[in-house]
C-alpha cells in the first residue's frame, strides 16, 4: 500500500485536488466545476472504467498463454516485413485513445518485439482505427479517409524507422508502468 502511494504520489495528489475542486464547486455552486464533472468527466471515465480493466485482463491472459519464442519469431529483431504488417494489422483493429496502446507495447516488448515494431504499433494504433472508419467516412467523406490512410501508412513506417535509430543509443526499454 505504501509502495503504491510512493509510485503514484503525484497522480494521487492531482486526483485529490480534482475531487476537492469538484466538491467545492458543488458547495459553492460553481457552474464550471459542476459541468466539467457531469458532462465531461463522468461519461469519459465510465467508458474507460469498463474498457481498461478488460484490456488489462486480456493482456494478463495473453502474457501467460503466449510464448515469447513465438512472438519473437513473428515480430522480433530480424523478423521480416511480414512482422511489420502483422503489427500494423493488430493495431488498426483497435480504437482506443493513444494511452491504451502503451500497456500493449509493454506486452509486445516483453514477448520480444523489435524496437521498430513497437513504434510501428504506436503509429498505426494512433492513426488508423478501423472500428471508427464508419465515423470518419460519415463525417468527412470516403475520399478523405482513403487519402488519409494512404498518406499515413508510409509515414508511420518512416517515423518508426527514425525512432528505432534514435532510441538505439538510449537503451530502450518498456516498463510495466
Amino acid at each position, binding site marked *: 500500500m505504501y509502495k*503504491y502511494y510512493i509510485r*503514484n504520489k503525484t*497522480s494521487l495528489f*492531482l*486526483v485529490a485536488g480534482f475531487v476537492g475542486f469538484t466538491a467545492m464547486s458543488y458547495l459553492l455552486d460553481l457552474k464550471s466545476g459542476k459541468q*466539467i*464533472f457531469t458532462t*465531461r*468527466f463522468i461519461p*469519459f*471515465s465510465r467508458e*474507460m472504467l*469498463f474498457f*481498461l*480493466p*478488460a*484490456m*488489462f*485482463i*486480456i493482456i*494478463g*491472459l*495473453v*502474457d*501467460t*498463454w503466449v510464448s515469447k519464442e513465438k512472438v519473437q519469431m513473428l515480430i522480433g529483431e530480424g523478423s521480416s516485413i511480414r512482422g511489420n504488417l502483422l503489427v500494423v494489422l493488430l493495431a488498426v483493429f483497435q*480504437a*482506443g*485513445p*493513444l*494511452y491504451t496502446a*502503451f*500497456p500493449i507495447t509493454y506486452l509486445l516488448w516483453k514477448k520480444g518485439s523489435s524496437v521498430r515494431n513497437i*513504434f510501428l504499433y*504506436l*503509429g498505426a494504433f*494512433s*492513426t488508423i*482505427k478501423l472500428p471508427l472508419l464508419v*465515423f*470518419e467516412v*460519415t*463525417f*468527412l467523406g470516403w475520399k*478523405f479517409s482513403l*487519402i*488519409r490512410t494512404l*498518406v*499515413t501508412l508510409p*509515414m508511420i513506417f518512416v*517515423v518508426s524507422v527514425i*525512432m528505432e535509430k*534514435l*532510441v538505439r543509443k*538510449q537503451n530502450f*526499454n*518498456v*516498463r*510495466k*508502468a
Partner: protein
Amino acid sequence: MIVLIVTFAACAISYVVDKKKTIAGIQAGLKMFLQVLPSVFVLIWLTSTLIYLLPEGVIAHYLGREAGFSGYLLAALFGTIALIPGFIAYPLAGVLLKNGVSIQVIAMFLSTLFMVGVPSIQLEARYYGWRIAITRNLVYLVGAIVTGTFISLMI
C-alpha cells in the same frame, strides 16, 4: 460492450483449460490496471477540463477565421495539446467542416491529434521513461505535420 464479451469469453475458455494460469493472468492484469489508475484519472480530468475550456464552437471560430498558414499552425497546435478520443474527434471534425473550417485544416488537426498527446506524456513516461516519451512525441509531431501537409495537398 464487445470488449467485455470477448474478455469474459477469453477468461472462461482459459479457465476451463487451466485454472491456475487463468487466475494468475487475471491477477497480473488487474494489478497493472491499479498501477495506472491514478494516472488515467488525472488524464481524464485533464481532457475533461480541456474540452470544457475549448468547446467545439471556440475551436471552429479560431480555425475558421485564421485562413492560410496560421490556420494550419493553429490546427497543429490544437491537435497537439488536445487529447480527444476518436469517437468524439470525428463528429467534432464534422462540426468544424460545417462551420466553414477547410478540410485541409481539419486534416492537420486530426493527424496531430492522433499522433501526439501532450496530456498523456506523464503516462507514456511511466512506460518508456521521460526522454523517450518526449522524443517520441516530437518525432511523431513532425510526422503528423508532414502527413497533414500531404493530405492537404492531395485532397
